[in-house]
């Protein structure tokens, strides 16, 4: 049974009502549970939980410290292509936008990778738009095979694929998959994704499961915050996370919190997500998933990112560029996926992490785990 089937069984109207009608007593009940479960999610993410935010944050901080220690893991995205056949209005890679399109050659990918490796990064996230002709499985296999001499962990955030394709990439050296559903509201999903392969809500949900079937070690999910009501998205993310953990018990769950910022198309999010909302979402998620990786990108401003250290986040990017070739060959394109708010160098971010009494960790996996005996 896929999560799409599970969603058919969940009464989405009821989910909304439970969030809406949650009371302080429901939040207290969630907080008094030794391990809050899905039944507590609507209360934890509700308006009624706002007066309990300090308590939720304290619990989240303590759990994160216990399960992960005083460390923050670092990773870096490498954008390999901004070609895309989809036309998502919130994305700087949308087909209809007049930006210069680039797919980096394997040599150029390598040049960027060498630079990122020299900065200290050992965990790489390859990102692209969706254009199977430009970013084909053969192209990916080729670049991943060359990158795995530099990086201990390679994850992908690219177009949805089949189990067989993920197996090919896993064999080449990929160990993690990130695939945001964008919004869990099927109607809104249809509204934002009117054309292209991404218009299939169910296909997108199935792809992360294909990654689980290929036994990728990390399965990363997220909702693009601002497309819908974040409280609803948070509850649905919790359902999705629980489903993935049960079915793919060998994979680690990662949850990201991408909030829509300025990008090339000038998209204005219809739903506001304040800093307070974001913190409630992150800390509530930690209470529900004590051992999940919680990820924050450079979409967020330095001061907020610094304050999130120790609160629930375990993995951060630093010094990101969201244009293919952005690290070394900036002139090649003007089309970034989103605007980076934290423009500090990786070194500056490390200083900030240390100043909070945490250790920045560049390496938490070893390529030897993935190498096949010959």
């Amino acid at each position, binding site marked *: 049974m896929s999560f799409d089937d599970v969603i058919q069984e969940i009464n989405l109207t009821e989910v909304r009502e439970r969030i809406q009608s949650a009371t302080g007593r429901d939040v207290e009940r969630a907080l008094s549970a030794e391990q809050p479960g899905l039944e507590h999610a609507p209360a934890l993410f509700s308006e009624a939980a706002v007066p309990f935010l300090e308590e939720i944050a304290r619990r989240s901080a303590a759990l994160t*410290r*216990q*399960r*992960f*220690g*005083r*460390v923050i893991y670092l990773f870096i995205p490498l954008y390999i292509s901004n070609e895309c056949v989809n036309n998502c209005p919130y994305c700087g890679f949308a087909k209809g936008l007049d930006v210069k399109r680039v797919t980096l050659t394997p040599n150029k990918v390598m040049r960027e990778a060498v630079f990122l490796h020299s900065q200290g990064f*050992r965990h790489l996230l390859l990102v692209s738009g969706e254009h199977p002709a430009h970013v084909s499985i053969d192209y990916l296999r080729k670049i991943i095979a060359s990158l795995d001499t530099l990086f*201990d962990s390679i994850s992908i955030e690219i177009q949805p694929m089949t189990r067989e394709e993920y197996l090919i990439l896993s064999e080449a050296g990929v160990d993690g998959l990130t695939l945001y559903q964008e919004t869990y509201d099927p109607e809104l999903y249809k509204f934002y994704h009117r054309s292209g392969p991404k218009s299939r809500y169910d296909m997108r949900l199935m792809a992360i499961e294909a990654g689980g079937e290929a036994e990728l*070690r990390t399965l990363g999910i997220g909702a693009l915050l601002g497309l819908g009501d974040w409280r609803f998205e948070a509850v649905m993310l919790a359902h999705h996370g629980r489903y993935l*953990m049960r079915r793919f*018990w*060998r*994979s*680690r*769950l990662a949850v990201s919190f991408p909030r829509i910022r300025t990008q090339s198309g000038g998209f204005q999010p219809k739903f506001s997500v304040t800093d307070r909302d974001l913190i409630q979402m992150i800390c509530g998620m930690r209470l529900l998933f004590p*051992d*999940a990786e919680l990820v924050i990108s450079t979409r967020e401003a330095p001061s907020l990112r610094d304050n999130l250290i120790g609160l629930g986040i375990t993995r951060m990017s630093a010094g990101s560029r969201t244009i293919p070739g952005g690290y070394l060959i900036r002139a090649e394109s003007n089309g970034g996926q989103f605007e980076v708010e934290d423009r500090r160098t990786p070194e500056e971010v490390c200083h900030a992490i*240390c100043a909070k*009494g*945490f*250790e920045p*960790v560049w*390496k*938490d*996996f*070893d390529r*030897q*785990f993935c*190498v096949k*005996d010959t």
Partner: protein
Amino acid sequence: MNKPGKKLIIAGVEFHSRLFVGTGKFSSPNVMAAALAASETEIVTVALRRVDLNNLTDAMLSALDFRRYRLLPNTSGARTAEEAVRVAKMARVVAKTSWIKLEVTPEPHYLLPDPIETLKAAEELVKLGFTVLPYINADPILARRLEEVGCATVMPLAAPIGSTRGLKTYDQLAIIIEQAGVPVIVDAGLGMPSHAAEAIEMGADAVLVNTAIAIADDPVAMAEAFKLAVQAAEKARMAGPAGESRLARPSSPLTGFLPEDGS
């Protein structure tokens, strides 16, 4: 079973400290180094996935004084026997030790060890000449099987790793300790010095502590507290504990006036 007064010997090597310390989760390599020193440990475990063993400037490795500590690399992150064996082989080359703490944990959330893959990997590693210290659930039969295939110790968990919940597996641990012919090192889940003391008092040969020290507000003081607890428990065992009784035993018995010969 740690017989009172018996030295801790693992694979022919004698240790004075019964406290092993892990190196994960610390706020900085310097804090880690200071905590290790305060613990007076002689064995430190290092997750190979965390360090760049090809790079001697690796921050964590540079903070470790290899003259003082025996490095015990672990295979944490391995999901299968095949992966664990591969990582152990790498450790032997780069860390120049054939001692390996075998961890095979296919489920990334509770990190509970896979008994089947652990036994498989242990068997192979022993054949390859490794000194194998396997991390296991508190399963007495698995402990016997691992001893039979030639492991140097068994390292049963007290509670899920990082949970700091104490000796949740007490009864099973007691059976392992009673039956083992190799040192039993209670690993994972010890949250307070009293938990470590209890493990040593019940006859464990040593304990391994990481999270409880690393995430304490003052890791150095906590490391020392664990050291003292382990030493106190060891001393108590040597002193001959009074033992438990369901009946009260007054220190001044009411019949103490009677002559001892029963007349």
